[in-house]
């Protein structure tokens, strides 16, 4: 698996997009820090960007890589390598290279600004952890969509739709449901509804850590009341891990029946 991972990783590192992505985060980090002039404020702004953008980039990269490396994959399939090894290797290759762009791109400006002297280092660390989780989750989801659709355009469309749903529509539908059913007790419902969306979950995870009640929103407040800060952090991190495991498991399952 390491060989496949290595080749996928090199392949991506060689393509311009990894650098564009890296440069984007680098620029974003610098601009935010020098405009806000305050690490804590920069982290909150960054949170809002990371939570929408990393899933989008992960989705697009995942789908694009899957369809573009069709030939490479077929070449590998004729070699004495297990199917799941090939795809998990590729999956890790993309996820790791994206995560590297994120961590280095944001890490460099924050380090230069004096992150180690600030108390915000743990908040920032958590932000990177959440961003990395989102990368791994959405690349896996994108692979799922691509595996189920032979047609490239269709696969791309569904993947973007999935991102749009989780990033925007889900929240809207959730809010509407809260308004419509506001005569009922909604604590547990909203708690579970959050767990089913990795983007919402990441937002709460960071906000719990930052402890900004004003930004927590309804679900965040429920979350905090229900779990407390530390246990809440633990539970949401655990659910994030499940969000990685389940799509990867489905990739493996789907592969067993797939024709190439």
């Amino acid at each position, binding site marked *: 698996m390491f060989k496949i991972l290595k080749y996928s990783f090199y392949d991506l590192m060689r393509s311009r997009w990894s650098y564009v992505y890296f440069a984007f985060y680098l620029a974003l980090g610098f601009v935010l820090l020098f405009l806000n002039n305050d690490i804590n404020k920069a982290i909150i702004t960054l949170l809002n960007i990371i939570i929408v953008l990393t899933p989008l980039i992960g989705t697009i990269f995942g789908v694009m890589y899957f369809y573009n490396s069709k*030939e490479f994959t077929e070449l590998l*399939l004729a*070699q004495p390598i297990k199917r799941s090894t090939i795809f998990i290797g590729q999956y890790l290759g993309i996820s790791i290279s994206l995560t590297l762009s994120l961590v280095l791109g944001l890490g460099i400006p924050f380090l230069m600004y004096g992150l180690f002297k600030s108390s915000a280092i743990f908040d920032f660390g958590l932000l990177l952890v959440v961003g990395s989780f989102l990368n791994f989750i959405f690349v896996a989801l994108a692979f799922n969509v691509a595996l189920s659709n032979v047609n490239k355009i269709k696969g791309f469309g569904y993947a973007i739709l999935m991102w749009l749903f989780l990033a925007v529509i889900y929240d809207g539908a959730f809010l509407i449901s809260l308004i419509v059913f506001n005569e009922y007790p909604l604590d547990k419902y909203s708690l579970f509804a959050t767990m089913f969306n990795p983007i919402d979950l990441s937002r709460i995870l960071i906000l719990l850590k930052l402890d900004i009640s004003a930004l927590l929103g309804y679900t965040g407040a429920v979350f905090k009341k229900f779990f407390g800060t530390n246990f809440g952090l633990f539970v949401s991190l655990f659910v994030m891990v499940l969000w990685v495991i389940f799509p990867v498991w489905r990739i493996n399952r789907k592969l067993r029946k797939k024709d190439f």
Partner: protein
Amino acid sequence: MIKINNLHKKFGKLVVLDGLDLEINSGGIFAILGPNGSGKTTLIKSILGMVIPNAGDIKINEQSVLKKWEYRNQINYLPQIANFPVNLSVKELISMVKNLRPKKANDTDLIKLFSLEPFLDKKLGNLSGGTKQKVNLVLTFMFDSELIILDEPTTGLDPIALIHLKELIQKEKSKGKTILITSHIMSFVEEVAGEIVFLLDGEIYFKGSIVDLKKQTNQVDLEHAIANLIAKENV
């Protein structure tokens, strides 16, 4: 060597292989022929495990190969269309494939044979179709395996490369290898193949030597004999 039992494969509603039985003995060159869409590539890909059959069994050396992968170390496969990752150079691709197989590779002689030295550092995306096919041939023939599967090996090759290819095939045959070839170039088939397997409607329609086929169809050349087989079915 290869024993295929009651193989079924459907793509959606399209039935491609319909209870195919085939036995191929060790050693010799077998041409798998049939009209377009008769299931040649599906059959080959089933043997390689790239296509998962709906029913039936494939055995290589008395061992079922379905859901397995280690056996592929004993197969060299030349895919139909030489599509490679465009970002890699020829050298990198060759070393990558060598790296992925736990086997000794003999690539230098083959690179020389097909005069690929000037292309070694070029990106695969910039190569012509014929040159890509030569790279494809190097990747296929550089390992020493019992079974060699060639899907349309002549595509895009110039006459010199074609002569080299025929020599390579004969050399492997003399070592006692089993070689499966699909091709639509009948003169090529007639020249290299010892036995013919003719696929039609997802089943084996004819299996035997070229001489038998000509006798059975009352034709003097292979091209007409095959055309005769296809036409008979359509009447």
